[in-house]
């Protein structure tokens, strides 16, 4: 297990380097003079020159990349052109906001998706199965931002059941401790605020989690059906075990293995989807941060935002791979 972990970590090195090459290109390879492009038409020569110097644009690419990389390793993610402050100091609370949203979205996706998949497989061809699979099929075909817009319109604006955006009510901002507002409200011992926070989480999490939920449900179902046909399930039935043990103990554990991979990959979809969902629900997370940066052509922020999200995605997949090895004893290294 240790050797496997170490090997997985070593494999990550070229991947992480490759990622930085791509994000490096965002700022340094844009056609024309990057400084000019970044600062826009109205920039003065002086401004362009200053930026060229700080970016080291006249150096060869290899050297520029080296500078970028060493800066990164020192925790320097560049400076926002819009706010003129360090990206690294801005990104923390936004990351927490995104993490909180992603967590709840994934929680929703996994709980609903896995259970719907199990029941569908168990009661194959029942009305529940057919309904669930139709819903899942529609779910995977839906653009996440459209779903978000529709939810916002219907549940927030038409029905007024839930807040239409933001993480908290603007009149009464929370004193952040961890920047995870659910945890912060608990730490403050403020139950009313906890309810408000959770209410704000419902629409964006459901919007963001629907597609992964549909995919997880489909995957769980087919994986369960596959496992249910296997020889060892027949053995377990031949021992006289009941349906519950067969399904929830043996079939589920075996079926989890492919489902886990899907969950890992869907986290990526979720993180990507966060850019769209957070924009629609004015969620002050990293997705919206990147979206705003796109609108303002704030290249250093786009660059760092993408890098940070990709980094998180890679780490989540690493965890999934390690979990894999934990669940499936056949994987040994």
């Amino acid at each position: 297990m240790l050797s496997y972990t170490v090997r997985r970590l070593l494999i990550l090195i070229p991947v992480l380097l490759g990622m930085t090459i791509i994000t490096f290109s965002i700022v340094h390879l844009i056609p024309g003079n990057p400084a000019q492009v970044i600062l826009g038409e109205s920039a003065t020569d002086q401004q362009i020159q200053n930026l060229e110097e700080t970016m080291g644009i006249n150096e060869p690419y290899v050297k520029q990349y080296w500078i970028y990389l060493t800066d990164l390793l020192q925790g320097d993610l560049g400076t926002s052109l819009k706010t003129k402050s360090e990206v690294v100091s801005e990104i923390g609370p936004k990351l927490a906001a995104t993490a909180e949203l992603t967590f709840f979205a994934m929680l929703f996706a996994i709980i609903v998706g896995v259970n719907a998949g199990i029941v569908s497989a168990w009661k194959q061809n029942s009305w529940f199965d057919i309904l669930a699979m139709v819903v899942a099929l529609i779910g995977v075909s839906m653009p996440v931002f459209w779903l978000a817009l529709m939810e916002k319109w219907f549940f927030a604006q038409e029905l007024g059941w839930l807040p239409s955006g933001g993480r908290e009510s603007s009149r009464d901002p929370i004193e952040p401790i961890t920047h995870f507002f659910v945890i912060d409200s608990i730490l403050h011992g403020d139950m009313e605020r906890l309810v408000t926070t959770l209410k704000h989480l419902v629409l964006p999490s459901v919007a963001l989690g629907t597609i992964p939920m549909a995919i997880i449900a489909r995957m769980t179902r087919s994986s369960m059906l596959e496992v249910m046909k296997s020889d060892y399930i027949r053995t377990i039935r031949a021992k006289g075990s009941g349906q519950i043990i067969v399904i929830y103990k043996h079939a589920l554990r075996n079926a989890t293995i492919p489902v886990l991979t899907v969950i890992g990959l869907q986290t990526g979809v979720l993180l990507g989807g966060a850019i769209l969902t957070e924009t629609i629900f004015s969620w002050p997370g990293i997705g919206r941060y990147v979206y705003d940066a796109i609108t303002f052509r704030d290249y250093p922020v786009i660059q760092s935002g993408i890098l940070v999200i990709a980094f998180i995605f890679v780490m989540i997949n690493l965890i999934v791979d390690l979990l894999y090895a934990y669940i499936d004893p056949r994987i040994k290294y």
Partner: protein
Amino acid sequence: MDNIVLELKDLHTHFFTDNGEIPAVDGVSFDLKKGEVVGVVGESGSGKSVTSLSVMQLIPNPPGKIVGGEILFKGENLANASEKRMRKIRGNEISMIFQEPMTSLDPVFTIGNQLIEAIRFHQKISKKQARQRAIHMLELVGIPRADEIVDEYPHQLSGGMRQRVMIAMSMSLNPEVLIADEPTTALDVTIQAQILDLMRNLNQEQGTSILLITHDLGVVSEMCDRVVVMYSGQVVEEGTVREIIKDPQHPYTKGLIRSLPNLYKKEQKLYSIPGTVMKPSTEYVGCRFASRCEFAFDRCFNENPDLYELNHQRKSRCFLHDEEKEVGEFVDTNTRS
């Protein structure tokens, strides 16, 4: 007759597929007595495995379904027993081992976990006791280092060892009947010898009745008291192992035995039955073997013969038994070159 533990009466198990209804088991009857080893022999597609799965009600449904007949286990008809009742019987009173030891154990749980689960489902004993019992069973089936193996995963064991684990699991509750569905087919011959030896000992020491499903006449000859020969979903011949091998009556059995290369006999050329096994079909009316049979005559293609009872528990499904003369002629062919 009173010591019959398992009796199949006119069992019909059909599969309902896109290509129509397939009578995989088409009116099978035979019995198994206490302490007896009965072999069910047949080639692929003969319905021997489906028969054994039917007894346990482990036919994947859909597409398979028992559509007729009785399965009497100590007088109780299992063919229409509830799932709840079957769960009590499976593993406890009738247990089963399968052909593929490599895939028949759950890969993500330890050997011990799977054994303990089987024991504790039927007997209310503590985990610790069940574990002791599991280790004891592993020792009984000749697994070395049983107290360590119990905590290992199936993939850490060889095929032969896994089949021993399967046997340990199936014997752990001292069932009256053990159904072994091609238990050694996937194993090497030296390992097969070990497993057959083990099964023979269990049969002799514990008095377990064994229903042995196999395609290998050698295995049958070594293990069984009586033999049932199946072809295309039906029993074509039944008798003691000596009768079947030394004096086969049905043309199929004859052909099968003659087409077997023998380790201890010199033969110039093997006999071969032309053609392949006919897939069972609901529409076909004639004898299932007629198209491959060198003795077939008109009646064979239009009518399916009954099982003729030649002697006590000696049966054969062939029109040639209709007249004494023809049987005589028939037996003659055995010596023909």
